[in-house]
């Protein structure tokens, strides 16, 4: 009894803290109170509190139900928001000096996933369920945790790339607007797409554009690093899932919808890495690939569960 109340308390605390953090971020964004360092510090502290709350929530659930807290969709969503707050913690601890733009991505992600999990849509799943025989294995911990952490990292990186795309495209629209009398405006979009870095170079004389260039560079590099990390987790997750399937069902690859979509996700991010090797395609093109990857991750994680068929039917649910 005490565990379930503790769990409830922790859920509510983390939810409210994250909403406060997001409110602070929006305030700094819209009211432009950038220089209020105290506010930024408190948002960072808020994220730390959230991280510990969600960790406590997961540990409580683990003790209470006797199995690792990753057996159905609700638990994996909580784990996903834990993954986001973990990424935020790691980047915060590593780069204490610089003001971290990453929190603008991780905090809303954490709250959206947690909010959806605790919302009324999945109420019947809040109680810890009993583990089916096929899930009673040590592999559960490794496979599912790696997959969910991989999803968290890839989603973060994808959002960073989408932000990069938004900034670049807004710049393109602005340039087109400014050079209306330029006869080959269509060719200019092409030219700019291919040499986005170079074009941004020429405008660096203006300090505002210089900062924007710095920002896009930083976003690009951050997203590359985070996506590499996510890709490693995804690879380990898929392969450990295959080995587990061989131990449990006799075949390491069954073209199950969820397996197939995980493989499609892996392929899209492999395409991303290959586009980056060729410097001509770097920048905007790779960001486009990553945006596709963002959608595909959601289809893989959520969309397949809506079908409710196949070997991964434990995660299925119906919207009621």
């Amino acid at each position, binding site marked *: 009894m005490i565990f379930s109340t503790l769990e409830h308390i922790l859920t509510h605390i983390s939810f409210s803290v994250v909403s406060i953090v997001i409110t602070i971020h929006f305030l700094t964004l819209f009211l432009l109170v950038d220089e209020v360092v105290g506010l930024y510090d408190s948002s960072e502290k808020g994220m730390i509190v959230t991280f510990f709350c969600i960790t406590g929530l997961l540990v409580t659930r683990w003790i209470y139900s006797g199995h690792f807290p990753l057996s159905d969709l609700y638990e994996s969503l909580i784990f996903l928001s834990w993954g986001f707050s973990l990424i935020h913690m790691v980047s915060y601890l590593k780069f204490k000096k610089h003001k971290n733009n990453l929190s603008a991505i991780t905090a809303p992600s954490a709250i959206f996933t947690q909010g959806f999990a605790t919302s009324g849509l999945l109420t019947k799943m809040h109680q810890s369920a*009993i*583990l*089916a*025989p*096929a899930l*009673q*294995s040590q*592999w559960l911990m490794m496979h599912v945790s790696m997959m969910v952490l991989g999803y968290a990292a890839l989603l973060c990186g994808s959002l960073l790339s989408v932000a990069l795309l938004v900034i670049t495209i807004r710049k393109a629209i602005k340039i087109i607007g400014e050079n209306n009398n330029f006869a080959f405006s269509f060719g200019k979009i092409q030219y700019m797409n*291919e*040499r986005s*870095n*170079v074009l941004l*170079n*020429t405008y*660096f004389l203006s300090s505002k554009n210089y900062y924007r260039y*710095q920002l896009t560079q*930083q976003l690009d*590099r*951050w997203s*590359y*690093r985070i996506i*590499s*990390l996510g*890709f*490693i987790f995804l*690879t*380990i997750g898929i*392969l450990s899932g*295959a*080995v587990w399937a*061989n*131990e*449990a*069902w*006799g*075949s*390491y*690859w069954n*073209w199950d*919808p969820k397996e*197939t*979509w995980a*493989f*499609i996700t892996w*392929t*899209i991010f*492999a*395409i991303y890495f*290959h*586009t980056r*090797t*060729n*410097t*001509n395609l770097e920048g905007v093109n790779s960001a486009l690939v990553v945006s596709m990857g963002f959608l595909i991750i959601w289809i893989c994680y959520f969309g*397949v569960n809506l079908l409710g068929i196949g070997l991964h*039917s434990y995660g299925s649910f119906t919207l009621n």
Partner: protein
Amino acid sequence: METLLNPSKTPNLFIPKTHLFKPYFLHSNFNPQPHSSFNRRPLSITITCKVKTSQGRKNDGKNISKKIVLTDSAPELSNEEIKAKPKGGGKAWGVIKKFPKRVLAILSNLPLAIGEMFTVAGLMALGTAIDQGESPEYYFQKYPEENPIFGFFTWRWVLTLGFDHMFSSPVFLGTLILLGTSLMACTYTTQIPLVKVARRWSFLQSADSIRKQEFSDTLPQASVSDLGVILMGAGYEVFLKGPSLYAFKGLAGRFAPIGVHLAMLLIMAGGTLSATGSFRGSVTVPQGLNFVMGDVLGPTGFLSTPTEAFNTEVHVNKFYMDYYDSGEVSQFHTDLSLFDMNGKEVMRKTLSVNDPLRYGGITIYQTDWSFSALQILKDGEGPFNLAMAPLTINGDKKLFGTFLPVGDTDSSNVKGISMLARDLQSIVLYDKQGKFAGVRRPNSKLPIEIDGTKIVIVDAIGSSGLDLKTDPGVPAVYAGFGALMLTTCISYLSHAQIWALQDGTTVIVGGKTNRAKAEFPDEMNRLLDQVPEIVESSISKKPDNIGG
């Protein structure tokens, strides 16, 4: 060598990153860097670019960057870069020799590989959208010709292209094979030469080329050997030659992508072996009966050959299930004995889900269960075995039932006692009118009186659902998996290279890295801060080593 604009304080040559050298229309601030040397040297501007020849790829798909050096004097004939292809003896032989090289060049083209990967991803997505393995009538109904999806997609598309068995269809397998050959070609032509290049120590002799790196800095009053010591402490491998220094770290990060490709090839080979050479079968055996492995296993491909172990007889000693307190099934277990052809017991093990039995290359998995028969005593007579039949199954929930006729068994409207069970734990009994009569557990031996008949449930006999499999490709596939995991992790490492040159009392440092571009400047600054500053009086060497 590409250069980027680097935000350092020293004035810089503005070199655009171009694919083809185009006159850049905004280069009004073009300052050529004057050489800081006292020798009379012609003003040299080095512009590097990648030149695409009209013939496409002449040199095995590599893009060799050619350096164009404009000097006052006549340009020297440098024929080292422009390699003339030696003519082989005879024209026909030359054509045949060139053919594999051209095929290789086509296959290792990166956009082609990216296109193939997109195709594979698209086909897989389509394979999940279209229901697999149904009868043709199903597709006639779902994708009718009268009302095609997107205006053209009918069942003809599905059946002729093999989309109903997408993952073994020629289209899909063909794309996979193409991807595999591209992998092999790319590894051979692009990545192995990269290994040779990366391993070479390349000292940069001129201060300009060092300043052009992504990160560059100048340390006044410092010595290159101090820098070398600091770098060694930070884990770099340092090479000093006179005034110039070259250090690198994380070379494994350059080799790891090759490992990734090789691991993938291994997995594909193992998968092909599995698909063509394995045996598969499944059987539901009631408790107490046995079967021979060879009768159950069927081949899956043309390379499948049975082994001696196929003659083993499997006997199901006992099948039982564990339950949670709430009544849900927690685990099923089967106690198996294996006997060889002479009747000797060679193995005995209790299987459960996630815990298979392995013998002689054959693996037996516990995958399913069923209810075989219910053993009852009727009015003290028996025991009778009533076969249990499966009733409507809702997903994972099973329901079995049987019927004990009472009274006149020859009449057409025979009535009797029905017994239903969801698992082996408890049986629910209903009387002649179909009203609920009671619940009994098989081991309790408690009798129940229904319409004058005394029934005792003696035992619930289950049957075990077993899957058998033999797969020769598994060791290769597992090795490939392990290698893939390892090499993917290693390719996260960043390969950092640092060059330095002693120019009088100052040291010019430049560096670049291929992955961790965000953290590299910070790391470099931290290291450079540690280099000690040499006070004037302790300098004893003459300023004769001036970088040129």
